């Protein structure tokens, strides 16, 4: 920085009135083919960045991010699973030496040693040599840790039926329809259909009956003859009752629109 007498400032500020040239440094004296980060290197690097971005966006478009059903704390049958990069820690807790009475091993000692060693690596591996063969212990430890993490992750992920999980946990839009249980068709629905299509027509074993696109005649036919994997004769009653049932389903759909 410039110091001393004869310096000129902008007004009463401490900004020097003398303009400094706004030009890059000259790297021609640097070793090898050194170049300036700005603008030379960045002009090439943004191209590599764009390729990365295109690949990333393709991944995003090809695989919409998953969303399961809204959390239901009473769902005792749900098998919890963390995101993939925590699977190795989760799997570790399944080994006998890391669970039950030895749980401290699994949650503190082993991860603590591994991550502690990672944090302190520069002080554990103090020799001056940087090449891998000059520090066999450090490199061997890292390879051991890497293999364990990959193995544990594989063990954990291979035992999960991902498709079945996704299928069983598809999101269901929240229903905002009020079911009119006084409707004459409701009692018939309750007897014939509710066990598969749910108390709010939201679908359980069978699909949701809200937001469907059938004429009353088609609905009546489905109720008696079945469709797809739905067996026939779910409804057995008088024609009048069938009319009431169809009218009930239509009325819920009208309300949901």
């Amino acid at each position: 920085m410039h110091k001393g007498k004869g310096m000129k400032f902008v007004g009463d500020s401490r900004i020097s009135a003398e303009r400094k040239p706004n030009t890059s440094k000259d790297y021609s004296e640097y070793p090898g083919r050194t170049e300036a980060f700005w603008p030379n290197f960045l002009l090439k690097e943004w191209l590599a960045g764009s390729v990365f971005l295109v690949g990333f966006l393709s991944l995003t478009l090809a695989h919409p991010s998953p969303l399961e059903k809204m959390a239901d704390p009473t769902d005792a049958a749900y098998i919890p699973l963390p995101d993939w990069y925590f699977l190795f820690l989760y799997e570790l807790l399944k080994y006998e030496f890391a669970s039950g009475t030895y749980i401290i091993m699994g949650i503190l000692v082993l991860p603590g040693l591994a991550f502690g060693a990672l944090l302190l690596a520069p002080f554990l591996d103090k020799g001056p040599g940087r090449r891998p063969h000059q520090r066999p212990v450090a490199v061997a430890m890292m390879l051991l840790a890497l293999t364990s993490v990959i193995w544990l992750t594989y063990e954990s992920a291979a035992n999960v039926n991902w498709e079945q999980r996704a299928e069983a946990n598809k999101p269901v839009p929240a229903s905002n329809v009020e079911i009119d249980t006084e409707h004459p068709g409701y009692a018939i629905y309750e007897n014939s259909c509710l066990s598969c299509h749910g108390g709010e027509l939201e679908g359980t074993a069978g699909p949701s009956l809200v937001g469907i696109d059938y004429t009353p005649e088609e609905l009546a036919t489905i109720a008696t003859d079945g469709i797809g994997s739905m067996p026939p004769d779910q409804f057995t009653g008088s024609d009048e009752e069938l009319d009431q049932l169809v009218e009930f389903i239509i009325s819920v759909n009208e309300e949901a629109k």
Partner: protein
Amino acid sequence: MLQKIYDWIDDRIDVTPIWRDIADHEVPEHVNPAHHFSAFVYCFGGLTFFVVVIQILSGMFLTMYYVPDIENAWKSVYYLQTEVAHGQIVRGMHHWGASVVIVMLLLHTLRVFFQGAYKKPRELNWMVGVLLFFVMLGLGFTGYLLPWDNKAYFATQVGLEIAEQVPFIGTQLKTLLAGDPSIVGAQTLTRFFAIHVFFLPAALFGLLAAHFILIRRQGISGPL
């Protein structure tokens, strides 16, 4: 015209030295993939940063729709995913970015490790890096709960049960995170939201600043 505006500003706040400090640094031959293809391993740090920027931007847009309460969180995510124009893409970027950033972080760490680039004088920057890794894992853990679907809820419940088994401070630790010693519920969601969008990003920015300042001070490690 632009030059005039620049000069006007420079006249008042002397930005040229600041700008030159940021822009002027050399890219040595051995880290430049244009000269040695194998130098692409030096890109992983920059790519990690790139994904971090994607996470910040997409996350900012997500908060325009996301509602952190147990009644509406899932509904707001479902709405974003199905109704909002490009909502699926923005959520997709944040979702996949969270995984890609871990992969890039791992590759970057391995590059630094196998090159022994953490040795004197770069010990402190390595430790800053490991702390960055922990912060990113924390962001992943807290973000996983926010959609409030079954996988989110039950994974968090397991995570908190593990925290509870830490000796002596287990219960306090769980309460700190979950807002209650036994319930995973409304309090947990708001706490995780606060940690995910305020506490951990603040730590992340501080550590990133330290990381980059140290790299600039020390320069990149030399060729092996």
